[in-house]
């Protein structure tokens, strides 16, 4: 299988890529930090993957078309895309610095929308687009602020893309990890609800194998979020979680 991984140095993307590497897949990795990217590439090669890398800031949209052309030429064809770039940011900065709030939207929503728009034109029937969204997109909470808004936007876009590409035989999979113990959440106190990146990575590979529409990782978040969505707003706005 030939897979394009965007945001390949994210802990969740690494975990999924390890499973694919072990299966002997060919991986085209893109991430901003070149040194970190090559650390990830070496790891995946040692695990059995064939790996190509491009170090590039995905927020720079002027490079998107060339990047995707490169990936297509290098891989020959793309069987699956894992879109995993994203930032959470510090809560104080997110809530008080409008430029930072916009950067969150740019990284988590605008750049992914641009990339997926270009990819949608290039993927062949049978391919799968899997994008890392979050349970945070299901209902706005003070604790996640604009991060939740970016993921809500991504959810909506992915749902639309899924309808649009269905007839062409291209699957769109929305991945919704819950709380995951990664560098992104390093500053937050951990509790029993946190999952390991390895477990989430295995879940992603399974969701792509089964061509799921929306995959909660782990699965029980589906029921938790159903409950969270059902709470009346008058009550929800007083909650502290």
């Amino acid at each position, binding site marked *: 299988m030939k897979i394009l991984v965007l945001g390949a140095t994210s802990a969740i993307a690494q975990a999924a890529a390890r499973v694919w590497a072990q299966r002997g897949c060919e991986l085209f990795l893109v991430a901003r930090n070149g040194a970190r990217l090559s*650390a990830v590439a070496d790891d995946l090669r*040692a695990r059995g993957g064939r790996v190509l890398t491009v170090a590039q800031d995905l927020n720079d949209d002027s490079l998107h078309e060339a990047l995707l052309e490169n990936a297509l030429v290098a891989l020959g064809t793309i069987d699956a895309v894992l879109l995993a770039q994203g930032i959470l940011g510090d809560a104080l900065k997110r809530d008080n610095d409008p430029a930072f709030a916009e950067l969150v939207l740019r990284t988590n929503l605008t750049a992914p929308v641009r990339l997926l728009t270009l990819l949608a034109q290039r993927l062949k029937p049978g391919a799968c687009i899997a994008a890392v969204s979050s349970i945070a997109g299901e209902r706005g909470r003070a604790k996640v602020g604009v991060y939740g808004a970016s993921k809500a936007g991504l959810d909506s876009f992915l749902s639309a893309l899924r309808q649009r590409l269905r007839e062409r035989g291209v699957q769109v999979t929305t991945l919704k990890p819950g709380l995951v113990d990664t*560098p992104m959440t390093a500053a937050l106190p951990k509790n029993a609800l946190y999952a390991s990146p390895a477990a989430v990575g295995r879940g992603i590979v399974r969701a792509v194998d089964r061509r799921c529409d929306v995959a909660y990782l782990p699965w029980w978040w589906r029921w938790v979020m159903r409950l969270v969505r059902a709470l009346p707003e008058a009550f929800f706005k007083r909650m502290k979680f």
Partner: protein
Amino acid sequence: MTESWGRYPAAAHAAEVPIAWRTDAALPSERPLLPYACGRSYGDSCLNDGGALIRTRGLDRFISLEGDVLRCEAGVTLGEILELTVPRGLFLPVVPGTKHVSVGGAIANDIHGKNHHRAGTFGSHVRRFEILRSNGRFECAPGDPLFDATIGGLGLTGLVLWAEILMKRVPGPAIRMEAIPFEGLDEFFALSDESDAKFEYTVAWIDVLRDDRGIFFRGEHAEGKKRGPGAARSVPFSLRLVNDFTVQAFNEAYFNAQKLGRRKKLQHYDKFFFPLDGVAHWNRLYGKGGFLQFQCVVPTADALRAVLKEAPPSPLTVLKKFGEVKSPGMLSFPRPGFTLALDLANRGGETYATYIRLERTAIEAGGALYPAKDARMNPKSFAASFPRREEFAKFIDPAFSSSFWRRVSRP
């Protein structure tokens, strides 16, 4: 709260800082620091009460596997390594009783295994590593004084970022093993001498309640397909099940099961080396108070008899004869003689008194205690166990310390 495997003593850490990248790693600003990966040391050598821990499990990448040489980051566990390398016909040169330890931890404690009589310690198979200290990054190889200080250096000489390990060729995942019941220490000594000459792996389990009868295990890598065990069962919460009665019942049942079972069999390496990993969080069976482990090495058979006389009931009393292979580590624990390890449920004063008796007997017999297992030894016992401690102390990074080190270096 972050604990050690024995869940004793308790420690409050001012901060726990995860590190995920070797490429742009920097030491956190908190002081003092101590690396922490899996927390499988039993006592306080992986704790830093009042200080900060650098959580290193994020350093979990392989770097290369070329020929017999594996290079990987220091937070990779030995279990993760075996999962990668065994299908390619390579095994770790030394493994301890659990696969859930990191490469950094294996170096810091210079761990040993059932093949000590042949292979020596883990540190003897490390070819290179990179260490991050408060004055910079250094690549070390055997022969460098900082290398010798870091092997068995209890994480005090800096943060190991990656290491290179010389692996060994094996035919596959199978171990051909034998379990031989014995009655008393004389039979153990005879079995040990005979087996160490012929087998790569040897270890014994003994029942101190029943005149030191026990089971001698020996094995070696063999051809044959064996599937690994499934997911581990788990002890979901603290539940104090280990007491004198259950230990007696367990020991009786275990001895008889081994005696009645097949004497020779082909086993997956996981079952042979890491039987306790089959039950996740087994340390919870000692209840909230946790437990102490006592592990010593004593030079002679008579010394071993003297220590065993003081030994209380323990479900996991393990005995092995160490070999002559010398480790480069300044604070390395294994040395020629007999090593004995046993667990003591923590019942406060009474348990500490038992510990002191064991400690005194072992030290007076010219023995040494193992820091990775220890929560109670006094500074004098430490000094008697590690004659190179002053030479070692010069290599401690000024930004690093641990609960263990502060305890044993008290004047």
